[in-house]
């Protein structure tokens, strides 16, 4: 269906259902309960899941298929954000032209950088992309201040022209981003018993784009073009010897993944119309690499999982403070309670990066294939047990004869 085989279609449907019902699924705990801080079902975080999901899916098309490790992908995201905000400033607050422009600009930017960087492979490619991204970051901070507004970041103001829209609304404030009048920040809250579920317009816009990107990624993975990209990864030399020039394929993959990053950047600006240079910094590029590998590079669903995982823990862990910890360990005697709080304290709140770092080390050491491999191993464990049970049964039934 939709040009996918049954297995892929099933995966796509599952992802679609998850995205559609995420406001329910991510809000399993009642508002007033002690566990409410583990709820991730608020619009801001859910949007980030999807946006970083798109970013990672795109990165995976390059890294997972061709094996080219780009360490400068955040530059495309940053460029996308800047172009979207400029569109909001100059044209209108409708998100579609902004997102379209951010994808196109990021694509052109990726074409330029990719054309040069892809002359080299391996770590040289990583350093080249890193160099370009750091250059963009440094320039955005210094010389390009008229375009990027330097350290403050690019923001909307009341004096922006907005040719097709209005510079200011009737009550004199900056208009909000919308899709033909549907405001992105508008949230419908549904209260059911102790639960409050939030349905945000922006989230569903992101969901639509995420599903489109995911669908496109599946099609690329299963296409002859995707096959060609895998060939680059498995044996570039042999591919060259068969008379094929690998570089156009790699460049196409690079541009596509750059456009994905631009889409993510554009959506980010559509949800919250500002853009700053720190989005282009190499740590941001490192983050998407980590997401992809944590989830499982080269798999379809891995990058989305990795992005969700990291963003979830980033938000939840950094919210836990000492008071919360004291609440958790309150059932223990005072001395042990304080000891536990002291022990856990470095890993949560401001120290969540420490947890993140440890998690990476552990995942890379023990689960090189990422979360997807972990899931497969667990599934394999069950399957083997089932298979063993079946053979046991067949053995048991056999002696009767």
């Amino acid at each position: 269906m939709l040009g996918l085989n049954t297995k892929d279609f099933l995966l796509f449907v599952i992802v679609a259902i998850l995205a559609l019902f995420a406001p329910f699924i991510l809000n399993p705990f009642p508002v007033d309960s002690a566990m409410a801080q583990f709820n991730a079902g608020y619009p801001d975080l859910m949007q980030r899941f999807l946006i970083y999901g798109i970013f990672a899916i795109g990165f995976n098309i390059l890294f997972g298929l061709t094996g080219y490790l780009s360490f400068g992908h955040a530059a495309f995201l940053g460029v996308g954000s800047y172009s979207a905000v400029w569109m909001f400033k100059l044209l209108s607050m409708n998100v579609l032209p902004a997102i379209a422009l951010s994808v196109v600009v990021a694509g052109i930017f990726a074409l330029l950088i990719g054309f040069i960087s892809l002359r080299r492979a391996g770590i040289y490619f990583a350093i080249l992309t890193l160099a370009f991204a750091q250059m963009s970051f440094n320039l955005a901070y210094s010389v390009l201040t008229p375009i990027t507004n330097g350290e403050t970041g690019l923001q909307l103001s009341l004096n922006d022209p907005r040719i097709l829209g209005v510079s200011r609304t009737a009550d004199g404030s900056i208009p909000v981003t919308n899709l033909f009048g549907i405001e992105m920040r508008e949230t419908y809250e549904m209260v059911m018993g102790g639960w409050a579920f939030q349905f945000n317009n922006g989230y569903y816009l992101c969901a639509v784009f995420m599903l489109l990107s995911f669908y496109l990624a599946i099609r690329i993975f299963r296409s002859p073009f995707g096959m060609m990209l895998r060939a680059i990864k498995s044996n570039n030399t042999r591919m060259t010897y068969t008379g094929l020039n690998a570089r156009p394929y790699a460049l196409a993959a690079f541009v596509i993944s750059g456009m994905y990053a631009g889409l993510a950047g554009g959506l980010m600006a559509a949800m919250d119309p500002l853009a700053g240079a720190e989005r282009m910094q190499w740590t941001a590029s490192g983050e998407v690499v980590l997401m992809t590998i944590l989830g499982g590079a080269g798999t379809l669903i891995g990058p989305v999982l990795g992005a969700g995982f990291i963003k979830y823990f980033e938000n939840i862990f950094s919210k836990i403070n000492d008071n919360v910890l004291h609440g958790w360990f309150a059932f223990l005697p005072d001395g042990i309670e304080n000891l536990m709080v002291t022990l856990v304290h470095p890993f949560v709140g401001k120290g969540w990066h420490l947890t993140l770092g440890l998690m990476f080390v552990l995942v890379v050491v023990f689960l090189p294939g990422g979360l997807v491999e972990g899931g497969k191993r667990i599934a394999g464990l069950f399957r083997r047990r089932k298979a063993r049970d079946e053979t046991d049964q067949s053995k048991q039934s056999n002696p009767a004869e």
Partner: protein
Amino acid sequence: MDAIILQILNGLDKGSAYALIALGLTLIFGTLGVVNFAHGALFMIGAFCAVTLSRLFNLSFETVDPDRTDFLGNPATVETTYIEHWLGSQMGGAIIDWAVPLSLLIAIPVMIAVGFIMERGIIKHFYSRPHADQILVTFGLAIVLQEVIKYFYGANPIPTPAPDAFRGSLDIGVMLGFDPNAIIYPYWRLVYFAFAAVIIGAVFAFLRFTTFGMVVRAGMADRETVGLLGINIDKRFTIMFGIAAAVAGLAGVMYAPINSPNYHMGMDFLVLSFVVVVVGGMGSLPGAVLAGFLLGILESFASMNEIKSILPGIDQIIIYLIAIIILLTRPRGLMGRKGVMEE
């Protein structure tokens, strides 16, 4: 002319730091074949060795001095550091003053220990894994080390002064026959440069003139054959990892007075050092040193006002620009050997 000399000198101290870090990176890459993203963190830990020691020396107790009163008329409390109390104010004061150079002594064992633990504990398992995995695991390690330091020392830079004797500046211009105040250069930066030169020289001499170094060089060239000759090359490579960690750490210790250490200083240097290594040529030690100084000096030239007025923003991107040009025209870097890191 004097401006050019000044810029060369200005580039030397940053170039020294780049060269030292790049040297360690190349040592690790050349011996173990591991791309170590945690190397910047080792540099940072070195700097925090200096911070720790100077804090230890400054531990003090309060006494009430009956002869003096504070502005309310109460007897004033005076803080005396333990060191001064034990060793007398002259000797103790001198020790406190020289805290940064003295931390070199503790930094060497600390850094070698950190290097051994890292190598034996984690990196050992990554020799045969792809470079991407190595980058990730060392990147994770770097985050962990950084956060541990942040937890204990906070996020703000901690000023760590150089000894009083080196606090002023030297008027090099007068010595070379220029006007006074034309070329002024802080003493500590001269010390840093000299120190870097000594360390680099020592590493090269160690590799060149000792049997151990010879075996290591042979192992870098052909690990398998050396192993077949019955030499435990892994053990020697582990020691080299410790030495590389120590080089990064010492570079960090001496850098503490130039830039107040903070927990992410390592990451800031790491990216540039990788660029330096690649420009110098992966696996080439002289290349790393040469590229380190070259890029340091070019960076300081690019920050001259005359050049910035022609090419605005060039100081921000010069290193990356040079790296891109060199990688595209000389793919192996300045002095890279054939067959290193080439797919």
